[in-house]
């Protein structure tokens, strides 16, 4: 068995606020092997971004890990101090974000911001760092890197800025790159460029990639493994191809069906009724129960078990009791 680079075990994250505490992420587990691409997919508010931020120890104010472990190269990094984490961040685990405009400091040149990472982690001179930064700019496909080095973020386009973010993230050759919706703010043609670049560099550096996205298309074209999250929980996890050919969880099925298809015409789109419940109004039992077309009594009462149906799905419909009880399995897409 290949050793996991990152292994998240029973992660729970919650927010302290003036009314007390709201649990947001509930018992999330997954692992990434070396060189692998794992996607976490889900809609707004499902907790996919928070999951990635908790790995980095960058939870927003009030957020904290309440339970679980985050094993990176077999060390638990879930409760390290900022000082300890600063040795890992940017060097072993790097992260790029959705909004390349706001993620870069507007008052520093992009070259400075890239070189800074190297200076923070390695014993190099300012000159060497600058030189390396120019090389990185070239590597991420920025034309005339020497000139761009001296420019400020506002002088670059969105796509260029995201390339700068990538250069910054990869300058120390990390083992893991976390990309949180890296192409969401970009146009399709630019998105294609950036995704291609990330893939290419991932292979070149032999990194693992944790990609957070809401776009099933992106997942299908990039991921080795996928986790589908809903309302702070994992509902299904699988190899990519398997997931798209045999989605089992009613949520995953609904999600796939509700995308307008490019290769066929349909009169009406399949939908998932209703909306995601707010964290304060989470139903007991299965969190998807309020929107699930197949909800049974048990779904309202108890948290669904993890069932292996060729891959893992968190759903009562596939539990042995149900199958034995004669309740039909849900049809595939």
């Amino acid at each position, binding site marked *: 068995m290949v050793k996991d680079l990152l292994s998240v075990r029973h992660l729970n994250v919650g927010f302290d606020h003036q009314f007390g505490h709201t649990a947001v992420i509930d018992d999330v587990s997954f692992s990434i092997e070396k060189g692998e691409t794992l996607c976490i997919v889900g809609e707004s508010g499902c907790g996919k971004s928070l999951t990635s931020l908790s790995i980095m120890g960058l939870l927003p104010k009030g957020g904290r890990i309440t339970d679980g472990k985050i094993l990176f190269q077999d060390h638990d990094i879930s409760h390290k101090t900022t000082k300890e984490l600063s040795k890992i961040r940017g060097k072993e685990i790097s992260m790029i974000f959705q909004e390349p405009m706001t993620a870069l400091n507007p008052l520093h040149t992009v070259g400075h911001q890239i070189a800074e990472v190297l200076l923070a982690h390695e014993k190099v001179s300012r000159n060497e760092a600058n030189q390396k930064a120019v090389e990185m700019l070239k590597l991420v496909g920025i034309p005339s890197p020497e000139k761009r080095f001296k420019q400020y973020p506002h002088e670059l386009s969105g796509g260029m800025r995201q390339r700068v973010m990538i250069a*910054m993230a990869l300058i120390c050759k990390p083992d893991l790159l976390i990309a949180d919706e890296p192409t969401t703010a970009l146009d399709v043609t630019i998105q294609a460029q950036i995704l291609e670049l990330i893939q290419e560099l991932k292979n070149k550096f032999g990194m693992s990639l944790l990609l957070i996205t809401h776009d099933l298309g992106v997942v299908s074209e990039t991921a080795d493994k996928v986790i589908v999250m809903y309302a702070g929980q994992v509902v299904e996890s699988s190899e990519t191809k398997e997931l798209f050919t045999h989605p089992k969880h009613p949520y995953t099925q609904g999600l796939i069906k509700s995308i307008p298809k490019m290769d066929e015409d349909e009169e009406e789109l399949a939908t998932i009724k209703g909306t995601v419940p707010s964290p304060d109004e989470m139903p007991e039992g299965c969190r998807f129960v309020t929107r699930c077309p197949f909800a049974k009594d048990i779904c309202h009462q108890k948290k669904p078990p993890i069932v292996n149906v060729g891959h893992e799905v968190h759903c009562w419909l596939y539990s042995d009791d149900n199958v034995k009880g004669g309740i039909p399995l849900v049809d595939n897409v």
Partner: protein
Amino acid sequence: MLYYIARRLVLMIGILFLVSVLVFVLINVIPGDPATLMLGQEATAGARAALRQSLGLNDPLYIQYLHWVGGVLHGNLGYSLADHTPVMSILLNKIPVTLELTILSFLIAVAIAIPVGIISAIRKGTAWDYVTTVFALSGVSIPAFWLGILLIYLFSVTLGWLPPSGYVSLTDNPVKSIVLMIMPSISLGIRLSAQLTRMLRSSLLEVMEADYIRTGYAKGLMEKAVVFKHALRNAMLPVLTVSGLELSAFLGGAVITETIFAVPGLGQLIVNAILTRDFPIVQGAILFIAFAVVFVNFLVDIAYSLLDPRISLGGASK
């Protein structure tokens, strides 16, 4: 960059023009006849008419304005009604005094505001932050004249450490000059320092929430590096703008401070001139102060554009 400065200069000249118009209107639309004012109620109608003629008061207002501006451009601000000394020479006497006071106050304000603001933002929610908040709130609320009187009561009347009032020129006796300026500078500077503290604190808190700060941490920078390299400079931008805008209120405060501590500067000059209705002096002094405010704000704009690379591209607008 040069382009930007040139544009700002053009804008500044426009404002200076409006400032001069405002000053002129303010003083020349006074109810009451300057000639009567100058000659006293007893003067004959003929004498008054003659004076009006010689002062050009019978001309239309815009001619009077042009005359006046023409004089201003040549460094002639008119003559005091009281003793006919040129306003310009009176101002030149008073300006260094006020300059010393304001610079000292400003230094005190900045010396307090920057460290206090930073610490209270970083240690938000601690006892230190609480103390700072109370200080800042009191500082912006305390009337300068009361603070001045409290200082005098404490340090002069009760403790006898500092002389209650007076002024010695910096060139005559630097030590004594500074000693005399301690209380006035504190009483003038405290409000600004409180304001800057509040601004810096809230601005820094806001910046610390920005995405690029998260990026800074994500890169593996230590907290110190994040705060000082990435947050502080960005947080200073709004503080800089505000301190430019606050400058005029700050100079206004000098009026009160100089009156309390009997500092013979521009402020005291204005108050006395207003009380004796010596309007040419009022006019000249106000004009000077407004020009100073506009000019300093021009410098602030330039400083801002040096700090913020997004500015110098020049204004594109829809």
